[in-house]
């Protein structure tokens, strides 16, 4: 069948691609300018350190979050035990923790003046240097990233375990295979795309992080980009380094794609019959419970309590009306932007769905690449064309002086879309994959047009993924730093910029309250998200 590709959807998709890939092309364009003065210096002294430290960090984090994420997902989706329902959602909570705040909280817990160390020292006289446990090193960084990012894998794996057609697993049990064998031979391979998707998202988070690695003293590529650009004032070398970073991300995406091979994972029978949860008892139950409790304790409860402790100490200093205002603004900005991002992602994916041809697929992939580029570099890519547009608009309207879009909320939201499209895109993509294309084709063969099919058939079917996508984006935006810092209007603060301001001024305790709010606000949608995933089960 020849696909008729000249439809309204492809036109819109193309226009959106044109708009949202301008920053990317601007950055690529900069690559063709000659290297800056410090490039040679970077190449001789630093680049191998960046490769080494980025590699070790990624490797450690992948292993750790793979183990934690998949095992937690398997336990809560296959076994029945006391507290399972609570663990289901508590395991997602660390997602609301910005990495750098996690790092601050943990050093706060273990540091010399922290409550734990102070208590031990003052009661037993035991001392072991600046930290009870020193996290300011590579192991510490792997630890911090692992506990804050494993929920990506957990969420994806759990959704996949729950959605898997049970036919295969039941067959496996009937053939006398154990739980472990079934897990290894059936559930895991079937969930591989989801798990690898989660790992890929987490890797990109690690690659893009600046706050955490800076605080812990790890020299990753992103740290190098900031160093080249800011310490050396050499934006071209910074963009060269980002190009290498983007290549690494390409490699990760390529591996993600190729490991799927040519297998199609849209299972025809999405039988909602759920496998009986296995009841576990005795020592198995105790071990399961202890393991999950430990994960939640380490990844959320402890750092959360540390922030509460700091906030309590500084409550009168930070809490006032302007804080309520701050809260409102952050919330509004994040939700409006998230809705827009989901709408854009949906448009791309739906276009691809009804017009599955190669160049549309390429457009879609391109448009999600913003997530692979550090926020600060995106900010440059956004500002250059926006300022040009502004100057043109100003001429056109014969006004002078002011910038119309740059430095406004509109400019900031545009940048958010460029940067965070991938976060909303991936859940929707796997949502569509799960549904399969047949039902859409059936609807259209029955005479419904693409709009009607989208609204009546596809949207209700991927409702869960839509909300999951929205929530992931929302929580990410609430934590977002570099773009907001650079592109926001005058006198504009979000919770994240406020927390960062205070923390960079070494007022970490004062930064705890805004951080706490970011986390609590992030927790609410997470609980909602969990309810949604649970509806898959019932």
């Amino acid at each position, binding site marked *: 069948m020849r696909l008729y590709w000249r439809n309204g959807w492809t036109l819109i998709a193309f226009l959106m691609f044109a708009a949202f890939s301008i920053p990317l092309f601007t950055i690529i364009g900069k690559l063709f300018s000659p290297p800056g*003065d*410090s490039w040679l*210096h970077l190449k001789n002294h*630093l680049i191998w350190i960046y490769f080494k430290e980025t590699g070790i960090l990624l490797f450690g984090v992948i292993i750790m979050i793979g183990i934690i994420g998949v095992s937690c997902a398997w336990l809560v989706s296959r076994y029945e035990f006391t507290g399972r329902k609570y663990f289901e959602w508590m395991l997602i909570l660390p997602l609301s923790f910005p990495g750098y705040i996690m790092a601050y909280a943990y*050093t706060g817990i273990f*540091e*010399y*003046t922290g409550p734990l160390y*102070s208590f031990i020292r003052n009661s037993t006289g035991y*001392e072991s*240097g*600046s930290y009870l446990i020193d996290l*300011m*090193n590579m192991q510490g960084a792997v630890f911090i990233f692992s506990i804050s990012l494993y929920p990506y894998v957990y969420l994806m794996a759990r959704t996949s375990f729950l959605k898997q057609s049970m036919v295969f697993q039941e067959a496996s049990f009937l053939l006398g295979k154990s739980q472990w064998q079934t897990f290894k031979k059936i559930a895991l391979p079937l969930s591989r795309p989801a798990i690898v998707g989660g790992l890929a998202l987490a890797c990109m988070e690690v690659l893009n992080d600046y706050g955490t690695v*800076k*605080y*812990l*003293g790890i020299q990753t590529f992103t*740290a190098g980009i900031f*160093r080249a*650009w*800011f*310490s*050396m*004032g050499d934006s071209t070398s910074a963009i060269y380094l980002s190009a290498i970073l983007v290549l690494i991300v390409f490699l990760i995406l390529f591996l993600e794609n190729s490991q799927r091979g040519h297998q199609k994972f849209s299972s025809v029978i999405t039988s909602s019959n759920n496998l009986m949860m296995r009841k576990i008892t005795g020592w198995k139950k105790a071990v399961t419970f202890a393991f999950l409790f430990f994960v939640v304790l380490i990844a959320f409860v402890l750092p959360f309590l540390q922030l509460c402790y700091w906030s309590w*100490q*500084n409550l009168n200093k930070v809490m006032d009306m302007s804080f309520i205002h701050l809260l409102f603004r952050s919330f*509004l*900005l994040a939700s*409006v932007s998230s*809705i827009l991002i989901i*709408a854009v992602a949906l448009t791309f994916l739906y276009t691809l769905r009804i017009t599955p041809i190669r160049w549309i697929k390429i457009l879609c992939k391109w448009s999600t690449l913003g997530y692979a580029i550090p926020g600060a570099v995106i900010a*440059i890519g956004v*500002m*250059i064309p926006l*300022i040009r547009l*502004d*100057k043109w608009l*100003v001429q056109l309207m014969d006004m002078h*002086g*002011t*910038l119309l879009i*740059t*430095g*406004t909320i509109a400019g900031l939201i545009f940048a958010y879309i460029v940067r965070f499209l991938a976060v909303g895109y991936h859940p929707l993509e796997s949502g569509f994959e799960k549904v399969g294309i047949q039902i859409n084709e059936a609807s259209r063969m029955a005479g419904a047009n693409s709009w009607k099919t989208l*609204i*009546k058939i596809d*949207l*209700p079917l991927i409702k869960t993924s*839509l909300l999951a996508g929205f929530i992931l984006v929302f929580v990410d935006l609430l934590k977002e730093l570099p773009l907001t*810092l*650079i592109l926001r*209007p*005058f*006198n504009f603060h979000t919770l994240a910029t406020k927390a960062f301001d*205070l923390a*960079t*001024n*070494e007022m970490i*305790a004062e930064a705890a309250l805004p951080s706490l709010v970011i986390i609590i606000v992030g927790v609410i949608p997470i609980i909602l998200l969990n309810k949604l995933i649970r509806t898959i089960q019932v």
Partner: protein
Amino acid sequence: MKFSIQLSSSLLLSLLISISFFYSSCKSSTEEVNIYTHRHYEADQQIYDRFTEETGIKVNVVSASADELIQKLELEGSSSPADILITVDAGRLERAKNKGLLQSVTSSILENNVPDALRDKDKMWFGLTKRARVFAYSLDRVDPDQLSSYEDLANEKWRGKLLTRSSENIYNQSLLASLIHHLGEEEAKIWAENTLANMARPPKGNDRDQVIAVAAGEGDIAIVNTYYIGLMTRDQNEEMRKAVDKIGLFFPNQSDRGTHVNISGGGVTRYAPNKANAITLLEFLTKPYAQSHLANINFEYPVNKEVESSPLLKRWGPFKEDTLHLSVLGENNQKAVMIFDQVKWK
């Protein structure tokens, strides 16, 4: 169906709310001044509020790191809304000047209030406060008579005893930039190499962390900025105050050129739309009210000679300052960064 209606109506509603909300908050009054600042201190906002009260000029602030702000100014070019750029280091101001982002300003008030060494020769930037980079040493383990100068830190006797933060930090870069000037590039590199070899641990954490590490016995001498010590003495956390009690402050190089000082300062941007207001604000910042406010709340040294330091700073005593012109810090910054990388000072 129900769901998509919900989705689209909530989308529309939130869009409308946000548009009206943002536009109402973006309305500008006639008299205003726009600041790009790297300073994130609470004291600053109080000073701006007082300024608005006195002059009726509204102060609009964007805070971010100086480098990001410089990049922003560069990109915005002649349509930049910024009137003033404020940084926490002279090197960055010098960089902004060299990139043509600042303009020359004639003001007798600024010239009277800010000493020569702390402002630009071409009147493009002016120091607003001073901070000294000093040694915080362990009162238990270090005899202050043993301490002398920055150069001495490279001496083998301090092997495994020094603490400082990463070379990413501008305060360390400026210190090395000053040493490049005083010792020459070769010697400065040797200094960096030997000083790094004396570190108790790889450079990491912030200035406070170094002080705590001295208190915790991980090292004996930390290179830190004065005002952090001031802020720590007033910390809510009792353990933090106890930690500061265990350290002494030493101002290096008193017998020769003096202790390295840096400034937080500002300049009027090249295309400032509200130039007159910008100058008024800069002047206000160097006048006694703002100066003593900064000194007392943020423990910075005032640049205005007529304003007294905070009681705590006075207790540390007067000290001899390195009178090196601060523009040198900017000129040598890149060399400093490169030396740090060459000797692998993280």
